[in-house]
């Protein structure tokens, strides 16, 4: 099979993984090396596809042959999609030639399970080894870890990779059991626990002052498919919060379940719930950076996030008694709860109000959505009046859902 054809099959097979981040690892360059590559710490997106997703890494599967039969997966054993398998050298050369042309930050390599977890993991690790050791490649490498692969292989993966990830796939262990019968939710969590311990170990100095061996400096992440099972948002966020707490993940990715070629009839085949996915990401940010708890973010009776307004606005609308907030006096934690104020604008408000009082005109220069902020704040020369009591406040704050058929041409 031609290389181009393999690339088409194996990129197509990898595109359901949302993660493409190239951030969070240590900074390095090639100035003292023989090879190529650098990392900046913050990551670079080299392109964007019309699905709005960033293209930062060459994201491919080593092979889409798989012995598992996970119904949501395009690569499941019972699917009739065309199959292909890259050789180690093919992946290495493809990565290097894309990298030289500045198309990518590095490689994100995953694989269908062939023969057994150890055999598969060995192949994946071998690609990373050749890139690092033979070609002195210093770009970003993200490896998908096969749960239950042997600890020695994990250690080697961590030595070469900048980030490791294992997908929990579905929000609950029970759904995983029904949709992915061969996958073991407990084993996935056990592996994530091991990864956290190894990542933390690699950051501690040993008693002799020697640096411990490198292990996935960019941490670990995971992905959950949303909308393939009936789990509600409350359970999803609860799972996320616990995953962050237990395994110190850098990110939990949410992937709206979308129709796949040759799909199983056990699944809801319809347009993917993109707005829900977007709201879950917003809620996830509230968990990580805004001091919200998983329980308080869900405001609906049905355990779902409000699709009409963002989760922070939804929370504020239900807690109107805590508003308006005085921008010149409120503590940081409360400023972070004001709809329309982000982490940066809160930092700017805190710095500015130490110098002088903030007034209405000042807000226009903070580049924020006045429409969102104004009903919830009070300033020396501004008061929202009775707008907080307005029954139509929610309708006024609603953002029209962007049309999917965007007129571009």
């Amino acid at each position: 099979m031609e290389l181009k054809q393999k690339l088409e099959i194996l990129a197509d097979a990898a595109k359901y993984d949302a993660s493409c981040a190239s951030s969070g690892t240590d900074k390095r360059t090639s100035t003292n090396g023989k090879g190529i590559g650098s990392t900046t710490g913050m990551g670079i997106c080299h392109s964007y596809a019309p699905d709005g997703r960033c293209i930062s890494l060459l994201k491919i599967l080593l092979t889409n042959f798989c012995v598992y039969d996970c119904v949501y997966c395009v690569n499941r054993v019972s699917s009739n999609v065309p199959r292909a398998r890259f050789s180690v050298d093919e992946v290495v050369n493809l990565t290097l030639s894309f990298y030289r042309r500045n198309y990518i930050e590095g490689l994100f390599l995953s694989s269908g399970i062939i023969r057994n977890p150890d055999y598969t993991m060995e192949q994946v690790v071998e690609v990373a080894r050749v890139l690092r050791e033979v070609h002195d490649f210093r770009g970003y490498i993200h490896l998908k870890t096969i749960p239950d692969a042997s600890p020695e292989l994990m250690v080697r993966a961590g030595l070469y990779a900048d980030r490791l990830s294992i997908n929990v796939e579905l929000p609950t262990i029970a759904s995983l059991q029904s949709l992915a019968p061969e996958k073991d939710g407990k084993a996935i969590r056990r592996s994530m626990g091991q990864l956290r311990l190894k990542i933390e170990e690699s950051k501690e100095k040993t008693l002799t002052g020697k640096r411990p061996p490198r292990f996935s400096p960019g941490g670990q992440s995971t992905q959950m498919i949303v909308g393939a099972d009936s789990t509600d948002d409350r359970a999803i966020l609860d799972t996320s919060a616990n995953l962050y707490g237990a395994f110190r993940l850098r990110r939990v990715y949410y992937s709206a379940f979308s129709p796949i070629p040759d799909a199983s009839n056990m699944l809801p085949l319809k347009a993917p719930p993109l707005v829900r996915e977007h709201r879950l990401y917003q809620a996830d940010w509230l968990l990580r950076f805004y001091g919200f708890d998983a329980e308080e973010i869900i405001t609906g009776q049905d355990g779902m996030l409000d699709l009409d307004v963002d989760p922070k606005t939804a929370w504020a609308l239900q807690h109107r008694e805590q508003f308006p907030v005085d921008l010149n006096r409120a503590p940081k934690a409360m400023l972070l709860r004001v709809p329309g104020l982000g982490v940066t604008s809160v930092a700017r408000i805190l710095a500015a109000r130490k110098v002088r009082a903030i007034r209405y005109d000042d807000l226009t220069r903070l580049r924020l959505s006045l429409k969102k902020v104004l009903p919830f704040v009070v300033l020396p020369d501004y008061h929202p009046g009775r707008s907080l009591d307005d029954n139509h406040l929610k309708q006024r704050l609603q953002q029209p859902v962007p049309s999917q058929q965007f007129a571009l041409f």
Partner: protein
Amino acid sequence: MQTVRLASDTDIEGWRNAARTLLLQEIAPEHIQWRVGQQTYGLFDLPEDELIPSQRANQRPTTQFKVPREFIELCRQVILHSDPSRFTLLYRLLWRLKAQPKLLQLSVDPDVAKAQAMVKAVRRDLHKMKAFVRFREIEMENGESEFVAWFEPSHHIVEASAPFFTGRFTNMRWSILTPEICMHWDGHTLNYTAGASKSEAPSEDAGEELWRSYYRSIFNPARLKVSAMLAQMPKKYWRNLPEAPLIAELIADSSPRMHGMIVAPPTEPQRKIVKYVTKEESRRLPADAGDVMTALRELNDTMLSSADFPLSGHATQAVLGQGVAPATILLLGEQPQEQDDLAGQPFTGQAGTLLDQALNAAGIGRSDVYATNVLKHYKYKLQGRRRIPLALEDRDIQTYLPWLRAEIEVVQPSVIVAFGPIAARALTGKGMESEAHGGKLLTLPDDRQLVVTIHPALILSIRDQATKQLRSEQLVKDLALAAKAAMQRALEKG
């Protein structure tokens, strides 16, 4: 009106020297015009008033006005912006900083806000240059490759991007051509030449076809989000991106492609499917071991597969007892620590190390004992991203007690060391304080002996060094007592 002529658009040193001089002469911002290179004079500019910064550079003023370090950083970024008013803006900020030293904290001030917006625009442009420069490969006469790119930045950022490209493509020969300035790297040194035109850059090459295949395949037609793409990859960049010509076609086809996937009827698998045997299943196969160990394994398997534990939902895994059976000493903790939950073994991490040291000092090998906890799951609550252990309640103990009893039956210890009063309570049903019973040997109703001592994790949390030392010594003493008792029991039994 004073005119300052800077050597180039990014002449930060020239700007600093001129600004320093002008500030000392107390010349207000509105009386200064800033010009770059050989620009033509404005109608009212008087050439004799020109200040050429490089000639005045040595005039070090005696009284220096200190500017905050962040202002210098701001200048370095703002000067890269393409807006011609940037020099005046920076001088006005400097002028105002004299009276308002905290001015830069005021993001709501119009001047500060404008400068910060310029910094943002420059950073973004620099970031997009790193992202969207696309090299094309040219084979040179000696057979080596040279990589050439054409790029059109919005601001004066080419020199600022150099460290990125030399650091990344150090061992490659490359050139980046832009309308204003070109940059060439031969593997060792960087050279700049005058601006070029797009026609001087190499045209499309075969290598781009693979990249386009990738771009086409990685796009998911079922999730069209064009506005999200445009926000990050505005159309002004498209003309130099080899993948951009595909966008229109991908968007147009997406809806029929998605619809096709939805209506397609499910197919029958074409290949023969072999049932996959999971590791879990293979692990359950009987292994040859002594009867006691088999009994223990059966017990543990039940524990692992049982879902009726209220705490098993969020715990990473069941932390089972560890060690050989039978064992003369059983070490009993209250519940797994966070590290144990991740590792799947009792007494790991720092607390485990401390316990090992204490066992060692008491003359006990870790392999001689069986270690376990009353609870087999980590009980915690989330506080932000931290997992805070929760205290055991009676009903927790009641839930796990049958398992502990069964474990004790299998392990058959003669002495149990309970770490902490709650572990002891699980065995005795009474409240016990470790202080009150430390150093004493108690006898349980089933005739096993009990030593209650302090939990190693608790010792770790003690701040005061003297107390910590004291408690550590107590732990060793208590363990030694247990060892002695176990020895005596062994002798009694013969």
